[in-house]
């Protein structure tokens, strides 16, 4: 039993960090550091930089074009990106539809789509959520009926992240409304976003961002060859996808990067007790979060090490289930401390973006102006991908038998 990194693992991490340091565009880094989503151009460029190094699909096996890393290396790689901070390889392709295709796709599907995921030729989006089916996917209403060689898809998806940048969507569609159980009769379908009948409508969020969308599908014709696996068993694909790579949900690297940043900020911020960093009350609250981050990090490492030693055995483990809950709570606590550090500055909307300077000196520092939008935006961490309440329901059932 040894939690410490081996010499090789340490060298691997250094290599990754050095590469990021050298290859990451400063504007992209500044934008990430500000808490904003990268622009599409920044994201694509960085993804391709990683692809050129062979690192854009860290979770894929060698056969599929991945680097063939073990769970420890995958974890270290992801954390190094978060720490930079740099964008992750675009996740909808690399972490979601890609692994599904590798596991369930036909050879033709793999040949057609996988290489374009590696280099981000295709931007994917996820069509799972619907207005009446969020955490409760069984009440899915979007239908697909087979007409000759095409599925005709009609329905509405919502909360579709970055659909306005997407070339393709992987969607759950109801292929058999008469199936005995509501999870049966669902297909996992790949839909070209340029197909006639698709309308993408932005959902503006309260922080002023356009990140999610509604996607309306009106008699959209999708070639039958775009169905992944059995048209009645798409639920298997969805479950596979949702159980993939839990350690990433803890976002430990982001938490650490945010804390480092907050410490730098607090050293330059005035408070009623001198510099904010010198206020023991602030320091204690920050240290308490650091302690929780450490507990989360060690828990992550336990999960990763268990994955590494028991590759086949995917029995659920309470440690892995708490990662998402605690990860979201910790990031939200950091956002609150940052908001408090901003004081009245949290009132001002951000004026310029770090990689797009304006002529005016902004009236408050960008970090302060961003503190409220980010606080609001980060509420999503305890909501999406199954609310923390649903996560706790699942844990109570799975591990406590309640």
């Amino acid at each position, binding site marked *: 039993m040894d939690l410490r990194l081996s010499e090789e693992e340490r060298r691997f991490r250094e290599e990754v960090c050095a590469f990021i340091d050298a290859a990451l565009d400063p504007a992209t880094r500044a934008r990430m550091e500000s808490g904003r989503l990268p622009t599409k151009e920044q994201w694509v460029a960085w993804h391709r930089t990683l692809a050129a190094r062979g690192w854009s699909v860290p979770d894929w096996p060698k056969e599929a074009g991945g680097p063939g890393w073990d769970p420890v290396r995958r974890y270290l790689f992801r954390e190094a990106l978060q720490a930079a901070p740099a964008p992750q390889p675009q996740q909808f392709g690399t972490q979601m539809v890609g692994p599904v295709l590798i596991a369930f796709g036909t050879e033709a599907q793999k040949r057609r789509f996988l290489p374009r995921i590696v280099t981000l030729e295709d931007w994917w989006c996820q069509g799972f959520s619907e207005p009446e089916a969020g955490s409760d996917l069984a009440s899915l209403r979007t239908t697909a009926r087979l007409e000759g060689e095409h599925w005709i898809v009609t329905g509405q998806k919502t909360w579709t992240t970055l659909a306005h940048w997407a070339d393709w969507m992987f969607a759950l569609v109801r292929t058999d409304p008469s199936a005995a159980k509501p999870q049966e009769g669902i297909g996992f379908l790949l839909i070209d976003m340029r197909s006639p009948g698709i309308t993408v409508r932005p*959902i503006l969020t*309260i922080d002023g961002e356009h990140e999610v969308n509604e996607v309306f599908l009106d008699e959209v014709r999708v070639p039958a060859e775009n169905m992944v696996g059995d048209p009645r068993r798409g639920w298997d694909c969805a479950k596979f996808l949702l159980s993939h790579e839990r350690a990433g949900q803890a976002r430990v690297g982001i938490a650490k990067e945010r804390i480092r940043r907050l410490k730098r900020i607090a050293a330059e911020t005035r408070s*009623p007790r001198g510099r904010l960093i010198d*206020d023991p009350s602030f320091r204690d609250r920050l240290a308490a979060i650091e302690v929780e981050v450490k507990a989360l990090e060690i828990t992550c490492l336990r999960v990763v090490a268990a994955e590494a030693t028991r590759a086949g055995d995917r029995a659920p483990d309470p440690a892995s289930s708490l990662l998402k809950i605690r990860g979201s709570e910790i990031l939200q606590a950091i956002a609150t401390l940052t908001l408090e550090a901003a004081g009245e500055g949290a*009132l*001002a909307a951000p004026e310029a973006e770090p990689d797009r300077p304006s002529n*005016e000196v902004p009236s408050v520092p960008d970090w302060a102006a961003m503190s409220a939008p980010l606080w*609001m935006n980060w509420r999503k961490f305890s909501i999406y991908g199954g*609310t923390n309440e649903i996560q706790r329901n699942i844990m109570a059932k799975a591990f406590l038998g309640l």
Partner: protein
Amino acid sequence: MEFELSEEQRLLEASLRRLLADRYGFDRRKAHARTPEGWSREVWRAFAELGVLALPFAEEEGGLGGSAVETMLVAQALGEALVLEPWLATVVLGGGFLRHGASAELRAAIVPRLAAGEVLLAFAHTERGATADPADVVTTARREDGGWRLNGRKTLVLHGDVADHLVVTARVTGAPGEERGLAAFLVPATASGLARRTLRTNDGRRAAEIVLDDVAVADDCVLGEPGEAFPLIERVVQEAIAALAAEAVGVMTLAHRLTIDYLKTRRQFGRPIGSFQVLQHRATDMLIAIEEARSMAIWAAMSLDEPDAAERRRALSAVKALIGRRGRFVAEMAVQLHGGIGLTMDYAVGHCMARLLAIDALFGNAAHHLARLADGGGLIRAA
């Protein structure tokens, strides 16, 4: 001890609420928010007609002689409708300086027009990098030619983009942070040497950055005693904090009502989500938080009459600390219980959250006031 509202107070509250119900539905509010100024002149006139703008001023000056309790009722109703109009800036802040610091002549010149909705005011006080300590002022006022010259830069001036007059704080003597040496002036927005730039705020409102480049102000525009204006500034800020506390109760009430409605109508796993006990308890905790906030808003209104300045300061710090924390809690819960929809621009709950964060940020957030209170000995004496 007596706790009932008077008949007049009930009437005022009811008519304001009726006006807002008729004219300030969320869709109308969205339309107001999209205008360049971010609010509606028409609604403002309706407030004037109802007497909302005249309320706190003395009757002999064209006001209605309302007390802190009336201001509390108004603020709560405005909060519950997420009202965007510059009531805090004009009536509470600007009006507060007129009531407590202006000469009779100045009041006679401004109050009737303010009450009629014809004049807008704003409070140009905050400076870049300043703490929430009201004495943290660098802007200077220099005596010259029988008047004053103002130099400096103010920011986050709420509704400073449209104000006709600005209440500008400045330092006659002393160093930033010192209570002695402060002054306040009523400066026309058109004054020569005064430049302004519109800012947006994170709760979808407008503010301004104001640059004062040797702006000349005559003696008759002085508010309070030059060099001794700190108690005046502090009093007006305290009245604003009391109003914000009441507004927060209103905003929280709206967020809670929307949440309860959602819990009753939204179905998941075949039943209304309000049937889940965990969500019921969250909704109950929101209710508890709102009742605590309501108590503190009432206490704030009462405490404005407290003659002991240190006692009053502690009380208002306690109020602001509780309001900030409970406001954030209610916002968190409302959004969590709604899920994604609670975070969208098109739905009121997200705007409740944004406003509650703004209320916390204004005039010192919860952390600031808690530290001030704690370092001042707290509320309960050891012996």
